[in-house]
């Protein structure tokens, strides 16, 4: 399995505006993208062969983390559908040739999902993105022991990476 190239999505006008608005620092490790800010980081990746975009939220509390779909389940389906159904976006230019129509279809579906997720995040996750009331947010997986263990290891790893590369001491 190969990770999909989603760099072009992170470089899009919408993603850049999103990162700027919420003061995220973008860090890419191979094909996995991280958006860092004081209270959390977001991990974003996709697999070439799948039409899925994986967006996972991790807090610096090591007890609050979840994938985006679990987080969104806290909000009204009708409200979310308003965002999804009203979404208008033309496919953005992709510099590389797709390997086949199947890969192109998967890529375009991922792309559409990515931009809808950005809109949903902006609409519903304002308290998280502003780092307000973060501890009080209802994360369904807050007490998942294994996830916390993995998350802790991941955070340590990322902190090391952060200090070694480009991020400042006050990011996490």
């Amino acid at each position, binding site marked *: *399995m*190969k*990770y999909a190239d989603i760099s072009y999505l992170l470089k899009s006008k919408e993603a850049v505006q999103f990162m700027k608005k919420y003061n995220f620092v973008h860090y890419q490790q191979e094909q*996995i993208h991280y958006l860092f800010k004081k209270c959390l980081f977001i991990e974003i*990746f996709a*697999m*070439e*062969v*799948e*039409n*899925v975009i*994986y967006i996972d939220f991790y807090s610096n509390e090591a007890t609050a983390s979840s*994938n*985006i*779909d*679990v987080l*969104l*389940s806290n909000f009204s389906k009708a409200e*979310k559908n308003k965002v*999804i159904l009203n979404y208008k976006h033309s496919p953005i230019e992709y510099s590389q040739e797709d*390997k*086949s*129509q*199947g*890969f192109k*279809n*998967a890529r375009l579906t991922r792309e559409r*999902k990515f931009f*809808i*997720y950005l809109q*949903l995040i902006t609409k519903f996750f304002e308290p998280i993105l502003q780092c307000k009331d973060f501890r009080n947010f209802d994360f*369904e*997986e807050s007490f*998942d*022991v*294994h*996830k916390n*263990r*993995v998350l802790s290891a991941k955070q340590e790893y990322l902190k090391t990476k952060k200090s070694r590369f480009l991020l400042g001491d006050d990011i996490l």
Partner: protein
Amino acid sequence: MGAGAAIAKGFKMYRAARSADELAEGAVRGGDELAEDAVRSVDNFVPTSGSQLVANPYKITTILGRWAGDMEHIKPSMLPEDINVGTALGEVAENKGGFNFLNVPDHLYDPDTFFELYNKPWLEGAINRGDDIILATKPTNPLQLMDEFGSLKGMFAEEVQYLVQQNYKPVNLSASEWNTIKSWF
């Protein structure tokens, strides 16, 4: 005890890693003697499911999970005979006491046909042989398998759905956990 030290205890660790259900079913033959080095295990990585990856010495042990975070770290521990067991892409038709790990060459991938052409027949073979299946990734919420758009989240979600359709319980899930997952589909 650290994971490495535990695994070093070989067969004892294997028996401890199995569920009470498995023991009751007699899948693990407590009276048999096995040399410690006869039991295969992945010693250097504990998957997010928390389950030790220890092969059943009497069967083939098929590993399923999400690529990112689990399968990508398990793959380096696989031997050539563990790859694609029982398929045209594999080296062996049987791998008793070993693992079974799906790894399709990149040039054969196509998102439109991958699951039906490779994943499903491979998993069907595992079920037909009666393999032990271990989930390296243990879903605890249906939204880990389905996204906001109602789509299954990738190959792992399709695999879990197929297991549910066949009612084939992974050995590292309790009956209760399995019933919960079945209720999601």
